[in-house]
């Protein structure tokens, strides 16, 4: 890290990294959303065409992608709630670091639950 960046309150710390994470996950989710509306629009064209595209979503490789997408959604959702608390709660800025750890713990727990369920379904288990 360069000399100029040390000693600042924000740069390189939890606040900056959560901001970077929020931006990156937001863009990833938005790009997926555009594709997801287009693939769903196939239900208006041909039932078989829709089923063909959806069956590619049901392959193991895509299941890994879906798991990654849900990881991004969960982080964006929980960190978004933290942002709202930072903006609207009187003590929000004081506890923003602790709230980020809360976000990460919640994220690990919910993501683990989702990943186990989704990957066992997608890889053929129950």
């Amino acid at each position, binding site marked *: 890290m360069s000399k100029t960046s040390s000693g600042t309150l924000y740069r390189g710390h939890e606040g900056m990294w959560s901001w970077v994470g929020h931006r990156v996950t937001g863009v990833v989710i938005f790009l997926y959303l*555009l594709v997801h509306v287009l693939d769903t*629009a196939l*239900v208006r064209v041909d039932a*078989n065409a*829709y089923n063909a595209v*959806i069956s590619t979503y049901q392959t193991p490789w895509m299941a890994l992608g879906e798991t990654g997408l849900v990881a991004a959604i969960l982080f964006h959702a929980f960190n978004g709630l933290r942002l*709202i608390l930072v903006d609207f709660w009187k003590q929000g800025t004081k506890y923003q670091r602790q709230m980020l750890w809360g976000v990460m713990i919640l994220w690990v727990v919910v993501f683990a639950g*989702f990943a186990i369920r989704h990957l066992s*379904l997608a890889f053929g288990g129950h």
Partner: protein
Amino acid sequence: MSVTIPAPRSQRIDPKYKRGPKSRSSFEMLAWLFMRLSGVALIVLIFGHLISNLIVGDGINAISFGFVAGKWADPIWQFWDLAMLWLAMLHGTNGVRTIINDYAEKHSTRAWLKGILYVATIFIVVLGTLVIFTFDPCVAGSTLPQC
């Protein structure tokens, strides 16, 4: 002896010195508020979407044309998906608009990128809305019993 300070040779002017006159419009404040309100609504809508489509029953393996037809036979799911489409697209578009404003410094670059963004947004929102409202369970290729 006085010190001569040479004029800066760099042509690049930091964007913070090129800002236009202060706007009296409350658009940016409303956009900020919208991100918070739609964000909370989207957590409910998207978590419900993921639970009903990926968690319960056979999860992703159950998704097919018939699954979508079954969901959209219920006006609650039609409204759910419509609200999710609109809020997610507006929330995402405003987020990307913010990112473009942050990183594209040239006015024409900003205008072009935002123009492309808004065209894509209008196309996807109109398309998605039409698909929900004109859905036909007996479209070509449908093998549902009522067809």
